[in-house]
C-alpha cells in the first residue's frame, strides 16, 4: 500500500485537520468529526446535511459552504458515519426551519441516518431524509438493497443548497433533492481497484487488461468484468445503460464526467469529448457539464458518468452562486 498518510488509524482525522487549516470558511469539529459552515446555523434557513464514508473527497466535506451543504459528517473510510455524529451535524445545521438529510442508498448509511433522525426528533429538530439511488448498474428491486447513491448526490446537494440559500421551505428543499434523484442516472467503471488504508490491500484484483463495469463508489467490485476498452466504448457502455433506464432523447441535460480519484483530468476530458459526441448523436442537448474528480473512491482509476435531465428551475438552481472548497462559482 503506497499512500501519503501518517498513522493509518488517523487518516480521517488528518484529513479533517487539513480541511480545518485550509478553509477558514469552515468550522471543523475534530471530536464530533463534522464539517460545518462557519456561519451555521442560520436562523430560519433550512439546514442541509449529508455524510457517508470518507474516501469520496471532495464529497461531502468539500461541498459545505454558501449555496450547498450546511454540515457534513464523514465516517471512517468507506464506512457510514455513526448516529451521534450525524446528530451533531444535524444540530449544527439546524436554524429552526428543519433539516434535510441527503442519504446515499447504502444499508449502513440509511440505517445510521435513520437512527440519527430519531435522535434529532427527540431534540425537536424536524428532519426530512431523502435517499439518493441513481446508480443504474444495480438492479432495483424490493428484494435487494436497491440502487446505490452516487453522482446524483452532488447534483442534489448543489441544487437543494441553492434553494435553501434562497429561503426555500423544508418541504420544497426536500422535493428538489427527490426530483434531482428521480431525474439523474449514473454508471461507473473502474480501471483499477483502490486500497482502504486500514485494510492495506486492494479491495479487488484486476488483471492488467481488465476493467470492472458498474462499480459503485466504495471500492466494491462491479457487476461485470471485461477486457479493457477504449474510452469511447466505455462511455458508450455507461451512457447506453443510463439511456436504457431513462431515455434521454430530446432532453436538456447536465452531464458529469467524474473521475474516481486516480484518473488524471487529461483522460477525463477525453472521456467527456466522447460523451458529448454520444449525447449529440442521440438527440440530447448538453446544457451544463462538470468534468473532474468530485465523487471519488480513494485512488481508484476510472470514471463515472452522471446525467441529470434538467428543468428550467433545476438549471437556475445549478447556476446559482456556490462557494465551497470543492465547487465554486458566482462569488
Amino acid at each position, binding site marked *: 500500500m503506497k499512500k501519503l498518510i501518517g498513522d493509518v488509524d488517523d487518516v480521517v482525522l488528518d484529513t479533517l485537520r487539513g480541511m480545518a487549516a485550509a478553509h477558514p470558511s469552515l468550522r471543523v469539529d475534530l471530536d464530533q468529526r463534522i464539517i460545518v459552515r462557519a456561519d451555521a446555523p442560520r436562523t430560519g434557513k433550512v439546514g442541509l446535511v449529508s455524510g457517508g464514508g470518507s474516501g469520496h473527497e471532495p464529497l461531502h466535506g468539500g461541498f459545505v459552504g454558501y449555496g450547498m451543504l450546511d454540515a457534513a459528517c464523514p465516517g471512517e473510510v468507506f464506512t457510514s458515519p455513526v448516529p451521534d455524529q450525524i446528530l451533531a451535524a444535524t444540530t449544527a445545521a439546524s436554524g429552526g426551519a428543519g433539516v434535510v438529510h441527503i442519504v446515499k442508498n447504502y444499508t449502513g448509511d440509511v440505517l445510521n441516518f435513520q437512527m440519527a433522525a430519531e435522535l434529532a426528533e427527540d431534540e425537536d429538530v424536524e428532519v426530512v431524509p431523502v435517499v439518493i439511488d441513481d446508480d443504474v448498474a444495480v438492479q432495483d428491486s424490493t428484494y435487494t438493497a436497491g440502487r446505490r447513491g452516487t453522482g446524483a448526490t452532488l447534483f442534489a446537494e448543489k441544487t437543494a443548497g441553492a434553494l435553501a440559500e434562497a429561503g426555500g421551505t423544508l418541504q420544497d428543499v426536500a422535493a428538489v433533492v427527490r426530483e434531482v434523484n428521480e431525474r439523474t442516472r449514473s454508471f461507473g467503471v473502474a480501471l483499477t481497484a483502490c486500497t482502504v488504508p486500514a*485494510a492495506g490491500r486492494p479491495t479487488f484484483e484486476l488483471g492488467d487488461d481488465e476493467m470492472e463495469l458498474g462499480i459503485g463508489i466504495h471500492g466494491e*467490485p462491479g457487476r461485470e468484468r471485461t477486457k479493457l476498452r477504449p474510452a469511447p466504448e466505455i462511455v458508450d457502455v455507461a451512457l447506453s445503460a443510463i439511456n436504457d433506464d431513462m431515455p434521454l432523447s430530446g432532453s436538456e441535460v447536465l452531464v458529469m464526467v467524474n473521475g474516481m480519484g486516480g484518473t488524471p483530468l487529461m483522460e477525463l476530458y477525453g472521456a467527456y469529448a466522447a460523451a458529448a459526441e454520444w449525447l449529440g448523436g442521440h438527440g440530447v442537448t448538453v446544457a451544463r457539464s462538470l468534468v473532474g474528480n468530485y465523487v471519488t473512491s480513494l485512488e481508484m482509476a476510472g470514471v463515472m458518468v452522471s446525467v441529470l435531465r434538467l428543468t428550467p428551475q433545476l438549471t437556475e438552481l445549478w447556476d446559482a452562486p456556490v462557494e465551497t472548497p470543492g465547487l465554486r462559482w458566482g462569488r
Partner: protein
Amino acid sequence: MDIDTTLAWVRGITAAIRRDADYLTRLDAAIGDADHGVNMQRGFSVVRSTLDGKEFSTVGEILTKTGTALASSVGGAAGPLYGMAFRAIGRQLTEPSATAEQLLAALRAGLEAVQKLGAARPGDKTMIDAFGPAVEAFEKALRGGAALGASASAAADAAEAGMRATIPMIARKGRASYLGPRSQGHQDPGATSTALIFRALAEAVAP
C-alpha cells in the same frame, strides 16, 4: 448466566474479533468494501473502554451498553444492526443473572431487532443466516433438555453451519447484493462475525 459470565462473553467477542479482524475484512473485500473487520474491531475496542472498570447490577445493563457503544462507533451496516441487537438482548435481561430460558428470549429479541431494522430474510446472505439458525438450535437444545452450556454450544455450531451455508447464496441485502450472482462462492462477513459472537457465548457459559 451472571454478570461475570456476561462480561466474559463480551471480552470473548472482543478477543475473537481482534484475532479474526483481518479475516473478516478479507471476506468483506471479496463481496463488499473491505471494512467489516476494521469496523468490528473499532466497535469492540470502544465497548471495552465503555465497560472497563464499571460496576453492573444487571446482565442486561452490560449488553445494552455494549449495543449502544457498537451503534455509536461501528458505523456501516453492521453498526446499527449489532447495536440494536445487543440493545434488544440487554433490554430483556433485567436481573443480575439470567436463566437459559430468559437468554433464549433475549437472543430471539436480538434477532428480531436485526430483522426489523435490516429487513433481510433467511437466504439473503446476511448475518441473519447465522443468527437465525443459532437461535433455533439454542431453543431446540433447551427444549430437548440440554443445559445452558450445551444449548449455547449447539447455537454456536449452528451459527457456524449457517455461516458456511452463506457461501453458495446469492446476496440480496447489503453491499454484496450489488454483485448479484458474483456474490456466490464467498462467505458472508456479517454471518462470520455472528458465528464468532455465538462461539464466544458458548465458551463464556461453558460449565
